[in-house]
């Protein structure tokens, strides 16, 4: 079968346990039923399809749930990863402090050119915030990564996080291709405008279940 996409990116979500999984699947919960089957066994990975600058991109996104202790995550897990989203919970100081440990783990075990991004996820109410936005930004600056605060409930910035990371990987790949291919007819700059046309949330239910 003909290839029906332009790029395939493998992304990983890492971070402490509980940075989002506590507020799973609101839309299914009612008095007599729950979606206990799926939430109990958990999701290994997802395939999402997005479009960036007219290119169709398949994202294969892996969650670390069940093996959240960074010591247990080693080279095999990172193999082939092109992007890593580091997640902490803004209502959990410890999860924020552990981002440094996670980054150390990445530097030890992942490819050196992997794209990284830090996300402060808010699965709970603002009044319980323990980590200021400023501290999140400072940490991102320190490690030279992008930073976003996301909210699953408000469906805020989740899509943007994935789009941003995918766009960064795509730009890097295209630059590498150009370098490899030699002849470059355009300026080498990549148009990164396109994602605003998305009508619908691609990742609206993610931060609870996977982040």
């Amino acid at each position, binding site marked *: 079968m003909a290839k*029906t996409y332009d790029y395939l990116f493998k992304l990983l979500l890492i971070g402490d346990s509980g940075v989002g999984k506590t507020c799973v699947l609101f*839309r299914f919960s009612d008095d007599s*039923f729950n979606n206990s*089957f*799926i939430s109990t066994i*958990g999701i290994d990975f*997802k*395939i999402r399809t997005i479009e960036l600058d007219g290119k169709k991109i398949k994202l294969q996104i892996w969650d670390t749930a069940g093996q959240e202790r960074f010591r247990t995550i080693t080279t095999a897990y990172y193999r082939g990863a092109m992007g890593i989203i580091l997640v902490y919970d803004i209502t959990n100081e410890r999860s924020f402090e552990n981002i440094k440990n996670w980054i150390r783990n990445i530097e030890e075990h992942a490819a050196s050119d992997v794209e990284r991004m830090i996300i402060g996820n808010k699965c709970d109410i603002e009044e319980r915030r323990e980590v200021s936005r400023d501290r999140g930004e400072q940490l991102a600056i320190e490690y030279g990564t992008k930073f976003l605060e996301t909210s699953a409930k408000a469906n805020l910035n989740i899509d943007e996080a994935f789009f941003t990371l995918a766009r960064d990987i795509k730009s890097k790949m295209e630059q590498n291709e150009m370098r490899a291919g030699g002849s470059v007819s355009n300026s080498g700059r990549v148009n990164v405008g396109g994602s605003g046309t998305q009508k619908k949330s691609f990742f609206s239910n993610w931060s609870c279940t996977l982040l």
Partner: protein
Amino acid sequence: MSSSSLSLPSASMKPLEKEENNGAVEAKTNEETLVCKICQTVVILKNMTTEWLNEERELPLPRQKKGIDHTQTEPVRGYFGVKDIFAFENVGFTRSSEGKRFLVCGECEQGPVGYVDPETEMNYVTPERLDVLQASQDGKN
């Protein structure tokens, strides 16, 4: 059962389509785009699958009653099969439960909408747990 009746001319008159117990797998693609019943996200575009499995399989119910210690299931018949996981637009793969992995909507995680055959690693998705993309929506991403 083992008689080679297929070679007899009369055998070809049989309506083979009705013999659901034999040759349950046939080469066939999904002629319609399948979307999640809950959030209408595209799970798989049309013409992406390669076979049709006309058999029943037990699938866990999307909603389980609380306070029950076993997984409630129901028999669901009919699955489109595809080997390549990247044939899907938006899908989630669960972790293994009693040796089986299941497919769910990649957006809202509704499901299971199918399963992975542990031996062949074919991915089977059932239209019974999905909606068909309506013509008016066609062309949208």
